[in-house]
């Protein structure tokens, strides 16, 4: 299985980008969704409620796929290990 990286901050995203493999999944969560303002190249998932709550729903590029919590559960089930980046 491939890794799922849970990104809790823009700093966390910068740190993990160096060591991800191409098939890994990245999910922006909580304040991690602010990373959409910095990264328009990496393929990312983001929790929709976290984006909308912060007014970011129209500020991200096509690299970001918005998912809900059931989408997150599905991602978690498909990956191992799960790595958190605060």
């Amino acid at each position, binding site marked *: 299985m491939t890794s799922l990286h849970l990104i809790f901050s823009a700093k966390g995203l910068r*740190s993990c980008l160096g*060591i991800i493999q191409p098939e890994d999944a990245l999910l922006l969560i909580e304040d991690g969704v602010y990373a959409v303002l910095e990264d328009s190249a990496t393929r990312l998932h983001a929790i929709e409620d976290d984006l909308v709550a912060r007014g970011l729903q129209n500020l991200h590029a096509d690299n970001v796929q918005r998912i809900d919590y059931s989408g997150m559960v599905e991602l978690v089930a498909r990956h191992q*290990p*799960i790595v*958190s980046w*605060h």
Partner: protein
Amino acid sequence: MRFLYLLRRPPYSGSLAAEAIDSILVAGVFDQRVSVLFKDDGVLQLLKDQQGQLLGHRSVNKMLAALPEYEIEELFVCARSLAERALSLDQLSLPVQVLDEVGQQTLIAAQNVVMND
């Protein structure tokens, strides 16, 4: 099961680093294969000559020195994090293996569980 502890915090921002080391020692008691990767500010936990008692804390470098006593001997450090802080291995309190980015990818991909501090 393979457990990796990914430590990215500096040693004295609250007691999070010390608590993480406590939990690594617990994992060591349960005969799991445990390794530790120090990355970002986590490499600062390894600096020699800390005096945590001045802050009312346990000295994190002394706690880390207990890892080999618990048979936790796979200790890794991120090459880039050392370079960014102009640190060399002789400034660290424990023997660690330096990993480049590919080495870290391989390490993480081999784990069942990755924990954080």
